[in-house]
């Protein structure tokens, strides 16, 4: 299940990052975590790499899944990634 909800995030950072929409975990290795927030008319994905990889070492797919999610939620062309 790549999309989950982290109940603590909305309260902790929602006022700063925007309206919390959910958290994505990449498959099959869980190399990418993306916390998704709606900020104005765009969807911002705060991307981190919990297994310690850099962004250029990731082998899991995540762009296609996040793009599909953005399209499904009405944010096509308005998905912005912020990498850690």
């Amino acid at each position, binding site marked *: 299940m790549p999309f989950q909800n982290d109940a603590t995030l909305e309260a902790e950072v929602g006022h700063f990052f925007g309206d919390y929409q959910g958290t994505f975990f990449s498959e099959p290795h869980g190399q990418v975590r993306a916390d998704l927030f709606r900020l104005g008319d765009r969807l911002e994905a705060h991307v981190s790499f919990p297994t310690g990889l*850099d*962004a*250029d070492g*990731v082998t899991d797919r995540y762009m296609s899944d996040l793009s599909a999610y953005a399209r499904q939620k009405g944010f096509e062309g308005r998905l912005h*990634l*912020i990498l*850690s």
Partner: protein
Amino acid sequence: MPRLAVSVKLPYALRLRAESYRVGPLLELIRVENPPSLAAAVARTVVQAEFDHAETDDADEKQRLRVRDAEQLLRRTNRLLRWYRAVSRKTDIVELTRAQASPFEFQVLGEPAGKGWEDPINYEAAGPTPAPLSLGELT
């Protein structure tokens, strides 16, 4: 085959001619573009590198290539900054992190390419920034 130009705006105005420089053991190219006037208070140098890729519809592959290009530009930039610091003896010129160099801007040169090549890449600092220590706390 898209040719991508990746660029970042440095937090410095380097007194270098606007041209391409070769850096590192592999003599990789980095182009320096200076603002029209280095006297302006907000003048900042832009550095750029170009990369060729095969066209792909795979969004994940596209992202991997673009992230790698950004990494390469950052590595070349930091080599250039190390050299510049040495020859100019400006000790306040320091290397940049991914977050400090962000955003990485992408532009497709030549023939039009598919969607997703030109989205900027932004890095944020991975953790909280330590507060500077006072002299009393340092000693």
